């Protein structure tokens, strides 16, 4: 018996990446433009007037990891969810379900493609940011690994969302109502240490805080929390998503009648 179907995985991955390129204006140019606007307004315009910076870093540079994460979380979730939702919506999912592919091939294909798109976005955003703010990356390999981990985790989360949703409204509501607010309140534009109690304690319950600070550590070597805590939270979220998807495939929840 074939344990893993590499060609099927590659086929799914290639098709999903091609689909993103087919809609490059929407899936790549749009998020890049939005993020660049943040850099221009908060980084170059407002940031240049904040002499003291934040947490010892120039404000324009301080917000780079947070803004990058804001895009990564939104786009990974969106890419991961659309990839599986569209075939469900059109009925073309029959082909995937009747093919000799299991959970591993499906996940690596769909989620790998979604994460790849996020990484392409991250590369473009970071390159574009150099035109507006001066920033450094203290731990480039950790940064790459962290970006990869976050992209994969939220692409998995998006995949779950795409299976759960039975309408375009539901598909769009989670990023708008949860991901974006949690990211904005998760220290994208400020250090959590600036918050008075009890808001600082409340902010600690926001999981995105740990992601933002993890990535900030990768950039500037310091953050509000130890990097191990951020990494642990991200890995825990990744494991939770994989476990839930494994359960979905085992039970056929919302996939098989």
């Amino acid at each position, binding site marked *: 018996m074939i344990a893993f179907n590499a060609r099927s995985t590659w086929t799914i991955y290639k098709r999903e990446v091609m689909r993103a390129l087919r809609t490059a204006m929407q899936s790549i140019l749009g998020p890049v433009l939005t993020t660049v606007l943040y850099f221009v307004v908060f980084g170059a315009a407002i940031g240049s007037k904040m002499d003291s910076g934040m947490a010892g870093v120039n404000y324009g540079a301080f917000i780079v990891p947070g803004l990058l994460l804001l895009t990564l979380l939104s786009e990974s979730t969106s890419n991961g969810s659309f990839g599986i939702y569209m075939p469900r919506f059109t*009925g073309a999912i029959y082909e995937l379900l009747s093919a000799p592919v299991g959970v591993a091939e499906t996940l690596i294909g769909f989620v790998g493609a979604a994460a790849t798109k996020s990484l392409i976005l991250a590369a473009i955003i970071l390159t574009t940011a150099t035109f507006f703010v001066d920033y450094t990356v203290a731990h480039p390999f950790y940064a790459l690994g962290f970006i990869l981990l976050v992209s994969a985790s939220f692409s998995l989360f998006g995949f779950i969302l795409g299976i759960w949703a039975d309408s375009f409204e539901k598909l769009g509501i989670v990023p708008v109502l949860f991901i974006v607010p949690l990211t904005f309140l998760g220290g994208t534009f400020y250090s959590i240490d600036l918050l008075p109690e009890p808001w600082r304690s409340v902010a600690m319950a926001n999981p995105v805080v740990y992601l933002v600070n993890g990535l900030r550590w990768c950039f500037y070597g310091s953050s509000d929390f130890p990097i191990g805590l951020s990494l642990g939270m991200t890995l825990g979220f990744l494991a939770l998503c994989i476990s839930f998807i494994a359960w979905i495939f085992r039970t056929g929840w919302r996939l098989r*009648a």
Partner: protein
Amino acid sequence: MELSPVSRITRSMEPILEISGLTKTYAGGFTALQGVDLTINKGEIFALLGPNGAGKTTLIGAVCGLVRPSSGTIRAFGEDMTHGWRALRARIGLVPQELATDMFETVLHSVNYSRGLFGLAPDAARIEEILRALSLWDKRKSQIRALSGGMKRRVLIAKALAHEPDLLFLDEPTAGVDVELRRDMWAQIAQLRDRGTTIILTTHYIEEAEEMADRVGIIQAGSIRMVEDTRSLMKRLGRTEAHIGLPVPLPAIPAALADYNLTLADDGLELVYRGGDGSGGGKAQVAQLTKDLVANGIDYTAIDIRESSLEDIFVDLLEGAAA
């Protein structure tokens, strides 16, 4: 690959699909399949007939992995589908009832994707052969959404054939397809069978089953009511009906014609014969009847003869089951 007329070849009795006690009850409580037992032989075309909601698509879905059976076993190619699903699914193709695919993809990309999804290496020559056979080669660079309904359906067939399945399910393959194209598709399906592919099709066109199928199965309310060789079914349940117009009304059936199964209609102006066995015996009897009419001095003005179709038999069986 050229089109050839529909022909029936000698088929093997080796089972390629064995379904036993298959039951499916959906979450809402509706039981779509009730203990279905069915065996499909290698190399045959099997037509599954039944009214809407009878369980045809659920049955296909259960074999192809779209539906989770509540109980029962499915064996394909001699192996249990539960355990050897990867290897077995790679040998099964499905053409769904709905035109469900990414409509923004080109025909060629879509068919190549299907081949890769089933784990096969790209094969441009094979894909070209499939597309040419289905008259899609000239449209290979077109987006699927730009094609006609009939062409879209052929794209789905091409996608299902891309991984060269040994067992092919066609769920309403000619629904919404015009008569000429339907006949082309019948020829293509027969050609697939001639190349060794076993085909299971569901259809609303009884003529389709009568024309193509080696065997037919009738499913109703989730149960298989009957499975029989198409020709023997026609022979067993088929009938000849002849309506003979008379210039002068008959008051009663003449005693000389008492051996025929005759009735009078239209106030004695029409003699109606019903009989035969669907294998030509009825027509011979009608020929003899006309001679006896002349011999007994009974003139006639017109004869209208028709053989009962599979549709008549199908309707009779369903009505019989309902009664």
